[in-house]
């Protein structure tokens, strides 16, 4: 009895598999060609861009999207994904381009060198830098706080309910590159790393602190629009040297300055026509990115409105990106 039921179950499963194969066309399914079901919805050509969770990335995408739609006649889909999964999505063709990558050597080796499913798309023109920051109002009162050697002296000022008896070093989203736990340990600092868990939470907290002029120490990065609202001063860490952060357990130096780069899906890079050519040429400055970021984050403009405004005022810049 039980055996026949099991056999029946197995038969059903097999039948389902066969039916599935028949339904979707016989033969192999290509996992490297997986477009979004919402793409090309009205017979228009679609480009899918990945957006990372920080506003700078939103600004890149907003301007690229605006120009692709209004100057080149594409439809643009955007998908928000964290950095590492975005590489995966890029290799599968779910996303056509990443516009702002902060350096992922492991992924680069796997997808660019080994599998050749992703191609570099050149530099974005913006240089990124991660560091530790204190609010400028606090640094002005206590100028020596800007050297890591004096940080222990101020541990008490940075203490919160979450950090126990130590000072609080606030870190952000889990998707960001960080050596802070190792740094605190290896530099012998009396600090506790508290992870805000998302950039939204971190920004909200920083603004709240700034409103009350409270001292705080945070992991933060440039370029970032928040500097315009809450001026912050970087704390000097031991100088960065090539390879000093190779061993993540032993790292005891500052973060590098990273020229941000673009990456394209290999099939899109070769066959993407005007859109691919345009995205490869897309290159602007930190100030330009910040202009757009501020409009999005502070004036609460929709990204597309912010992009429209920037595009109107900077025609000379973006004209050079269009395919001739």
């Amino acid at each position: 009895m039980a055996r026949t039921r099991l056999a029946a179950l197995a038969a059903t499963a097999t039948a389902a598999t066969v039916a599935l194969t028949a339904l979707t066309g016989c033969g192999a399914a290509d996992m490297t060609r997986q477009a979004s079901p919402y793409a090309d919805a009205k017979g228009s050509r679609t480009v899918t861009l990945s957006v990372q969770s920080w506003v700078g990335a939103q600004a890149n995408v907003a301007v690229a999207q605006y120009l692709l739609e209004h100057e080149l006649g594409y439809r643009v889909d955007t998908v928000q994904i964290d950095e590492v999964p975005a590489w995966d999505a890029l290799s599968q063709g779910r996303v056509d381009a990443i516009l702002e990558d902060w350096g992922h050597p492991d992924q680069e080796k796997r997808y660019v060198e080994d599998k050749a499913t992703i191609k570099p798309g050149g530099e974005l023109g913006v240089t990124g830098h991660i560091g530790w920051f204190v609010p400028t109002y606090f640094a002005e009162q206590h100028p020596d706080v800007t050297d890591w050697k004096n940080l222990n002296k101020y541990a008490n000022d940075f203490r919160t309910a979450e950090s126990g008896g130590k000072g609080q070093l606030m870190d952000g989203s889990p998707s960001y590159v960080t050596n802070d736990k190792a740094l605190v340990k290896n530099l012998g600092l009396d600090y506790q790393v508290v992870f805000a868990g998302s950039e939204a939470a971190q920004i909200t907290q920083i603004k709240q602190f700034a409103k009350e002029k409270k001292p705080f120490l945070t992991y933060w990065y440039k370029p970032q629009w928040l500097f315009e609202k809450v001026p912050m001063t970087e704390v000097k860490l031991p100088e960065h040297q090539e390879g000093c952060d190779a061993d993540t357990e032993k790292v005891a130096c500052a973060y590098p300055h990273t020229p941000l780069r673009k990456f394209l899906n290999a099939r899109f890079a070769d066959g993407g026509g005007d859109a691919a050519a345009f995205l490869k040429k897309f290159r602007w400055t930190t100030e330009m990115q910040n202009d757009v970021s501020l409009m999005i984050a502070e004036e609460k403009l929709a990204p597309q409105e912010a992009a429209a405004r920037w595009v109107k005022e900077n025609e000379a810049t973006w004209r050079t990106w269009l395919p001739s």
Partner: protein
Amino acid sequence: MTATATPATARGSVTAGDARPSALRALARHRRHLIGAGAALGLVLGSVLLGGGSWPAALAVDLSGPLERASDWIVDNRDGHPLFLYFLGHVSNLVVVSVRAVYLLLLALGWAGVTAAAGLVAWRVAGVRLALTSLAAFAVCGLLGMWVPTMQTLALMVVAVFASVLLGGFLGLVAGLSDRMHRVLRPVLDTMQVLPAFAYLLPVVLVFGIGVPAAVLATVVYAAPPMARLTALGLRGADAGVVEAATSLGATGRQRLLTARLPLARKELLLGVNQSIMMALGMAVIASVIGAGGLGDRVYQALASVDVGAALAAGVPIVLLAVVLDRVTAAAGERIGAAEAGRSRLGWAVAAAVTAAVAVGGRLADRLSWPDGWTVDIAEPVNRAVDWMTAHLYSGVPVIGGTADWAGHFTTWVLNPLRHGLQWLPWWAVLLAVGALALLIGTWRTAATAVLAMAAIGVLGVWDPALDTLSQVLAAVAVTLLLGVGLGVAAARSSRLGRALRPVLDVFQTMPQFVYLIPVVALFGVGRAPAVAAAVVYALPAVVRITAQGVRAVNPAALESSRSLGATGRQQLLQVQLPLARPALLLAVNQGVVLVLAVVVIGGLVGGGALGYDAVFGLAQGDLATGLVAGAAIVCLGLMLDRVTQPTHRRDLAGKGA
């Protein structure tokens, strides 16, 4: 821990024990003594033999090596291995094709066609009032400028719910017809239901990649269990007399199923569909983390620029979809069998004709997409309100202090001691306490499950973070119960308050949890306190509802007799209503625990740390070793807490005895 918990629980059972026959009560009292003695003996033995401290490293297994290799294997073979080329790839394509088909259909109908169809279906199924509600709901989605994302989410939902109903119905059918399969499936369904959605996002993403197929499949895992459960329940509960009659008339097994058992289970089947829809909508936003697009993605993107207003504008359509779909399917369940076939067919024909006419009209007028001018911007006023709130409540409120101060006190005086205490306890004492608690309230089997689940956490090597999470969950559950039972009792005693609360609870329950993320941080700062606040907001509605219903359902005769004996309102509540509503209150505790645990990951996004952060980290970094282990530990915590608070077996026993 054992010493303080035992008497508290014991006192709770004595009050309810009064209703039970004396033999059972004696047994229960005896049993408590046995458990108490056993626990004391265990404590003494444990301290002599095992010593203190957290989970010993020798008893832990490091899974990071094998998990990393597994994840590498999948990434390296995804483009070439037959498993992917001939099976998983087709699954993925099938999902994409189906979602696309529904999406294109919705776009082809245009906004007028879709809105008309929604209103007419609601009219046919549930009457004029719901029809108007549906029309208004879809119009609001358009007005908020969310038409296209709403259609994307709707397309995804249609496919996911369809698949969930098929899969859940099939499992339920198997479990309903075979006792053995029922026994096998029950723990599987139990686990699927306590699983926090984040725990299995990562493996699904690894296999299918970011995007719609992964989102649909993750949603199906989440939404199929209620369908399966209710189908099995309906089939098993079919009136024995009717089935007997069918058998005596010579019906074969299949005929009995199709003509007697399934039609008799219609109500449960429809309730199952309703539950699947609600669960699927709950996943809409979480699925956006893995690139599902639609409304969830809008919420998530708005949060990146710390824009609560825009997040709310995308969250409102989700709430409206949930309310409309819930009410319409619920009404369909109530009306079942009541409608006359002939008239209803005519009505449907009219509905279809009107929809077609409106859609064609929209097409001819070239008004398929929602007009750009017809939108209302709610983001700005909402943001202003949030700014005002945080500016005035965060700190410096005279006398009561600001929310930031409360959060600080709560962290220092409640969360820290609780975490410290739990982590300070020797590991074996924790296991002992869990076992004793589970025994007091359940059976040997539930106790064994609870202890094993807790031990598994130690073996996985995340003992300390798991206890950190546990301390947050316990604190959140305590606050939820305090507020929830109070509100529930008040709502049960005043029907006006009950009516006023209902829409508020609806919104809290269906609003995507991500929307709370910024307000809780703005009010409570970064840390564990906002995590607890988010969990309370999410779990409160269920606790209020269950409590109110339990108190309201208390036998009116018992109330009447107590009133005739001169009991005051307060006495009635404390001595009649609450004791008689005990099963409902226990269910409220259980649901509170499970729901709070479901928000642990959101806690990870606002600084809650511990397992929630690890789960988020795993997903963000594609780190299967961290993410999956954290997810598994959350599942184990959920199983343990569920078992410790779920007095299923003994309640049945008491019910039979009475």
